[in-house]
């Protein structure tokens, strides 16, 4: 069995936070929407504080022009080499820029967000505290749509 399948089987049975309803935001047409990337890969600039180990619920705001980002998620259980070859496989910022140029999306957000994926099962701090704070920062930038990329 592949390592990916082992991890998928492990995660399939972990407890997850329960939500009674599904929230639903209605975005403007994509060609008018400002789009951000929100990743759980723990990306950060070299001049930003690193993510700590398991349970670091903080986030980093990444500027639209940032490229040389460090993959701060500490798990050894995913393909880390792909990101080294091409950051877009985790953080498709260059693809968004292309979609903005050809008019598919309205605009690329001025800032994007990185959290670190390894969290306690309740994820309550992200849910109640740092998540809403990051969302407010994106809304302040006029973000309508977010693409969420886990590793």
């Amino acid at each position: 069995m592949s390592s990916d399948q082992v991890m998928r089987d492990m995660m399939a049975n972990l407890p997850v936070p329960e939500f009674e309803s599904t929230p639903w935001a209605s975005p403007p047409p994509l060609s008018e929407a400002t789009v951000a990337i929100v990743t759980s890969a723990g990306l950060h600039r070299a001049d930003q504080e690193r993510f700590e180990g398991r349970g670091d619920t903080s986030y980093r705001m990444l500027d639209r022009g940032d490229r040389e980002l460090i993959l701060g998620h500490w798990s050894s259980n995913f393909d880390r080499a792909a990101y080294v070859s091409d950051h877009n496989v985790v953080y498709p910022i260059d693809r968004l820029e292309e979609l903005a140029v050809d008019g598919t999306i309205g605009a690329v957000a001025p800032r994007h967000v990185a959290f670190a994926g390894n969290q306690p099962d309740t994820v309550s701090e992200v849910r109640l505290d740092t998540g809403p704070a990051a969302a407010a920062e994106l809304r302040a930038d006029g973000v309508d749509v977010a693409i969420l990329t886990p590793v």
Partner: protein
Amino acid sequence: MCVLAHVLEDAGIATVVLASMRPVAERMSVPRVLYCEFPLGRPLGMPDNAQFQHGVLGAAFDLLNAPSGPVLVDYPEVVEAVETPLACALPPRYDPDIAPSIDEAQGLRAAYDRAVARRGTTEVGRAVDADGVAAALGDFERVAAGEHWKEVYGPRLDTIAIAHDIRAYYQEAALELAGGPPPGARQAEAWFYEETEAGKTLAAARDALTEQEAPSGITFYMQPVGR
């Protein structure tokens, strides 16, 4: 990621999750999910393949047209990991007076430096930088040879981060040496653990730490499951 989808939607931002764990997404009432059966660590599927990445993004954006949710769609293309090691030559034995792993790591330094110069950044540096890789391997050699980890490291065991840095150093050098298109998922990992002296040293140190009853959370995350 699924929690953040809820939080962002509550704030008025429409989301699409490129999920890699389908059952998790199913259980969390996430508004819009594109399930992508790609190797973990590659939510867009294929590095250095803009066309493939645009295919994934296009399918994700299509979900924004759904009138109501939750919506969970499977991306039709599957990407499998490749378990055969990356084809990458290792440096010849140079200094017989030092451990093979340290000799090997020093032999890879020029390739590592070229990789950093080209890319402008490095994943090495969570616990040790490139200059510290040889000493870090020396510590793992001691643990593998039977010394107790408290003798080697003191009270704080940071071997997940140290192992990460050694592996990152090797993988960045290997991608530089191999050249060509990016390898399949797990090929660099397979090369490191199956072909390098450092990979064997890390595995032996992890086994020794397990025998010494070091904290299981640390030994578990020192290397990928199944290795």
